[in-house]
């Protein structure tokens, strides 16, 4: 059978690469939604476009900011955001780190990098007190673009998405419809929504419903 990677660190932590090493069919949390609800196409009239960035590596870091920041700098080449509710990215925008709480950050990397990221961080962190948790199967990322994106967000979240309240580089965990998600703004004209797997279908249906009047399209 196929190989898999597992290790117990010197600090007594089980590290486990949960990605198959062989070609195995994988389904994003929105697979059922595309099948069941469908995905309206993008047209000239679409004032909002959503696009799933499926199968990325999502890793939660817990620990002291100073300790983690140094390790992240070593491994990713950029540091943790220092201010609450902010987001740092590498120049390609492919890797990001977001403040979630005073001792918690969400790191998103290209799919497949999550295990080596964990391994390298653990190596850099030694026996400091921290936690690293792979949550890649538990969430997915949606991009939201278009001139009506802000208004669509206003229908959905009580958080202030006006540029005055939500400049580029900000990211928050907040209420969205009757659920919640992570909302971030990596670029002037692009929002990102990090959805929990089990709520993804509800949130997807919400977005399509609220976006109907903007002829919302799903880019796939």
């Amino acid at each position: 059978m196929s190989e898999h990677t597992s290790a117990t660190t010197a600090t007594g932590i089980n590290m486990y690469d949960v990605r198959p090493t062989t070609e195995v069919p994988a389904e994003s949390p929105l697979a059922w939604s595309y099948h069941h609800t469908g995905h309206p196409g993008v047209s000239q009239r679409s004032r909002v476009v959503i696009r799933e960035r499926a199968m990325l590596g999502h890793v939660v870091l817990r620990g002291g900011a100073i300790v983690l920041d140094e390790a992240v700098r070593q491994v990713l080449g950029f540091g943790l955001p220092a201010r609450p509710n902010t987001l740092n990215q590498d120049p390609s925008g492919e890797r990001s780190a977001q403040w979630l709480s005073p001792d918690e950050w969400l790191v998103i990397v290209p799919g497949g990098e999550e295990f080596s990221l964990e391994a390298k961080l653990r190596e850099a962190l030694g026996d400091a007190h921290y936690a690293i948790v792979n949550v890649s199967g538990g969430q997915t990322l949606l991009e939201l673009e278009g001139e009506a994106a802000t208004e669509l967000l206003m229908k959905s979240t009580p958080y202030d998405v006006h540029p005055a309240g939500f400049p580029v580089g900000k990211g928050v965990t907040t209420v969205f419809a009757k659920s919640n998600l992570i909302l971030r703004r990596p670029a002037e004209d692009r929002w990102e929504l990090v959805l929990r797997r089990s709520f993804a279908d509800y949130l997807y249906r919400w977005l399509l419903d609220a976006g109907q009047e903007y002829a919302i399209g799903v880019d796939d």
Partner: protein
Amino acid sequence: MLHIYCPYCEELREEEEFHPKGQAHITRPADPDACSDEEWGDYLFFRDNPRGIHHEMWVHAIGCRKFFNVTRNTVTYEILETYPMGEQPRFTAEYPEGKPADQLNDAQQEPSRQEGVHV
């Protein structure tokens, strides 16, 4: 709907993001076995219900998931301050306008704490 300043997120957030967790500053007895049944009952079940200034614990449940304290006027619903766990309030029933400066510790004198004051 309240507008609550999370001392960890350092901004005002909607009440929907928070859960109230009852009276603040209830400390679990260090040696429960040394408590009489009555003392233990007091710790478990008895809470204040003041008219006016009250200290409550809240958690930023849909947010940073941190617990913190709120000094709130139960009549006007005005929130006078929010402060992290382990700290003491600046506004109390005894000092509704705020404790005098000489009674405050360093953390309490930081201006950032004022941001939590809701007008």
